[in-house]
Structure formats: C-alpha cells, structure tokens
C-alpha cells in the first residue's frame, strides 16, 4: 500500500492506478469476472458501481458525525443498498437490455467489498470533498479495470469492440473468452502484466551503484 495521500490529486489518482481496486487490491472480482464478456456490459456495470460508490461516500461523509460507531457498518450497508436499488431501477427503466444482461450482478453490488471498504477506510474519516475525490478515483479505477477486461474478451470472443466488428468475417471467435473461463484467463494475464510492470519499475527506480554497494556490504561480513 502507498503511504496516506496528502493532496487532493493524490487521493483522486491512487484509485485509478497505484491502488486500482481490481488489479492491485483484488477487490470486486466477482463482477469483474462475471459480467465483463462485452465492453457495453463492463461499462454499464462500472458506471453503476461508480454511482453507488460516489453516492454512498458523499452520504457517509456527510452523516459520519451522527452515526454511532456501534451501528456504523449496518448504516453503511443500508446506504449502499439504497443506492444499489436505485441504480437497479434506473437501469431497468432506461437501458432494459443491458439490465437484463447484467442480471443479478446489479443487486450484488451491495456486497462489493470495494464499496464498503472505501466507506470504512476513507469516507467515514474524511470531509466530503476528499471523500468525493476518493470515490471518483476508485470508481474510475474500477471502470478502467472492467473495460480493460471486457475489451480483451469482446475483441477475442466476438471479434468486435462495443459491438463494432473489428476482425472481419474470416475471424473465428474464441468462444472460451465469452465463457467464465475467459474471464479468469484475462484477469490472470492482466495481473501478470501488472506484476511484471511493477517489478520492472521497482528495479529501474533503484540506482544501480547504490544497489551494487548494498550487495557488497551485505555480503562482506560473511
């Protein structure tokens, strides 16, 4: 985990990349695997979660002084469940086809530990402005992760991106990418890429000469 951020920009940006909820914290994996077979589904799921996270964070931050700590988790769940129900109804009314494709996973946003985690760890201890920045950053990170997985799966599984054919009629779709197994494969490969990138960055940050000296000083007493 990175040190507690101080500036607003850091609060906003860490959720998108350095503490990305899916790729770094490994939270919210259930929807990230289950509904990301197309970009449209990923985007809808990401936006619904973003809305719930933002709404809950604002409300929890505003009401934090009135909620006794003994009942805080119940109160947070109540707030989250309310926003999820609202998101569920609005999606069913406005985009019924996507609502049908996402099925039970909209209702299951309630149990996404990423959202409850942000309330307990951040929104309940920070003023509204910072809670909003944190929610926007984390929510955006979740959307980025879902769309990345969804894009990979849709391109290989259907040969299209957001429903627009990319790979031509000669392309034989990889059916496995649309199936649950494709979700696991994709997430695995992306985590592998993330790990590789992190390791490379950690290596390149460390100065060579200092590293050599350190190696020498450790080995010298032996």
């Amino acid at each position, binding site marked *: 985990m990175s040190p507690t951020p101080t500036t607003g920009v850091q609060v906003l940006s860490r959720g998108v990349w350095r503490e990305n909820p899916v790729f770094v914290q490994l939270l919210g994996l259930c929807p990230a695997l289950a509904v990301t077979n197309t970009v449209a589904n990923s985007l809808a799921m990401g936006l619904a979660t973003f809305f719930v996270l933002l709404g809950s964070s604002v409300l929890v931050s505003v009401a934090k002084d009135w909620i006794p700590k003994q009942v805080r988790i119940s*109160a947070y769940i109540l707030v989250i469940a309310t926003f999820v129900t*609202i998101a569920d*109804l609005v999606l069913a009314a406005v985009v019924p086809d996507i609502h049908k494709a996402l099925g039970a996973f909209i209702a299951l946003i309630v149990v996404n530990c990423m959202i409850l985690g942000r309330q307990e760890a951040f929104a309940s201890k920070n003023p509204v402005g910072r809670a909003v920045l944190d929610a926007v950053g984390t929510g955006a990170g979740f959307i980025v992760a879902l769309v990345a997985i969804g894009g990979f799966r849709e391109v290989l599984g259907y040969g299209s991106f957001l429903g627009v054919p990319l790979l031509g009629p000669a392309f034989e*779709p990889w059916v496995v990418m649309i199936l649950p197994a494709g979700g696991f494969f994709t997430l695995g490969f992306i985590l592998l890429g993330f790990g590789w990138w992190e390791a490379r960055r950690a290596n390149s940050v460390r100065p060579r000469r200092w590293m050599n000296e350190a190696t020498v000083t450790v080995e010298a007493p032996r």
Partner: protein
Amino acid sequence: MRAGEGTAAESRPAGRGPPLPVQVEPSSVRLVSTLATAGAVAGLAIVLVFQWANPRIEAHQARVLTAAITEVLGGPDRYETLFVEGGGLTFTPVADTAGLDRVWVGYDRAGRAVGIAAAAGEPGFQDVIRLIFGYDPSSGRVLGMKVLESKETPGLGDKIEKDSMFVREFEGVSTPLLGVKSARATGDDAEVVMITGATISSRAVVDIINHRLEAIGASMGAFWRGEVARAEAREAARSGGAP
C-alpha cells in the same frame, strides 16, 4: 477521528498523562433510532424512484411482448389476450385475471383469426429457456418461434435464438414436433433439425412447444372452431344484409 482512537485512550493506564475524556456509550434508543431514521429515509428514496421507474419498466415489457407476438404470428393487424380458464380459452374470465395463464390471438385486417401465440418455459442446458410460439390450430402447424429468455452457453446453446436457420425451422412445421439430427433428417413435415453441439438446448425448445401444445392444444382447437363459426356468421350476415 482516527480509527481505534477511543479504544487506545481508554486502555492507557491511569496516572500517566492528563486525564482522558470518558467515552460515553450511546444508549440503545440512540442506536435504534439512528438505524430507524436511516431506514425510513432509504425507504422513501426507493419508493420515489420506483414510482418514476415502474411505468417505464412495464411499458418496456409490454413493448417486448407485443414485438414477440407480432413476430411469431407473422405480423397480424392486432391481437387480443385470451385467458386459460377451466380447460377453455376465454376473453372474459370469471376469476381474477392476475393468476391466470394467458395466450394471445392475432387477427388480420378483415378480422379473421390468423393464429394463437403462447409462451412457455422449461429447463434447457444452463437455466430455464422461455420462448413464445405462434400456432395455427386449423392446420396444426407452428407459425414461428422466438426465444424470450435464455442463459444457454454463448456460441453453442445460444444458437437457439441467434442461428436464423434453426429459428426458421419452426415456420410452418407441423405438430407434434420431431427433433432430429441433421444426418437423420428425412424431410418430414414435423421435423426440426437440431443444432450440432447444442442438442440439449435444441431438444428443450422442441419439447417446450410440444408440452405446451399437449396442455392447451385442445382448448386452442375448440376456441378456433368457435372463432371460425363466428367469422362465418359475420360473413353471412354481411352478404345477407347487402342489397
């Protein structure tokens, strides 16, 4: 406030540092009233959104149903809802309509019945497949089939709705349907060639239609005879009344 601040302060041994503020436990009434208030506000918010969303959701469902009925009956001029009651079909049931099974009869421009659409659902390979089909009781043939809901395997089982060759198999096929593998197809009127790699899903579609017709096919036939008789009487009255 930092997490754990209260607990740490209370557990500090007496006699060290300045006296600490005593943490007062909130009363049970306070806890219950906090959650009750939150619950009431949440309930109100949900009711308001529901009032806005529900008419839209119902309108969409009605549009989907109308589109499906129109499709499986080959584009009738209008359709009416029929209720299944006491083994027969009626426009005006005695019982409350909410609990009754229903089918839809389509009429052409001249007011002649063109077919009856019926919905049904049974387990497929993954989950329940729900579909609607049009049926012509006078010839005993299916007019068309459309899958309303299915969670069949993408790329395999979902061909029951996405493979237009398979969907077209149901147009004009006589009943009871006979699901056959493509190699064993003989060209019989009742044959539906199943999808290779999706035999269970294809067979489920055939079975759903057969079972539904076994259950209400006779009532459909009886209704149809009545409908034909009424149409003939209307024709006779019209030609008799003409100068």
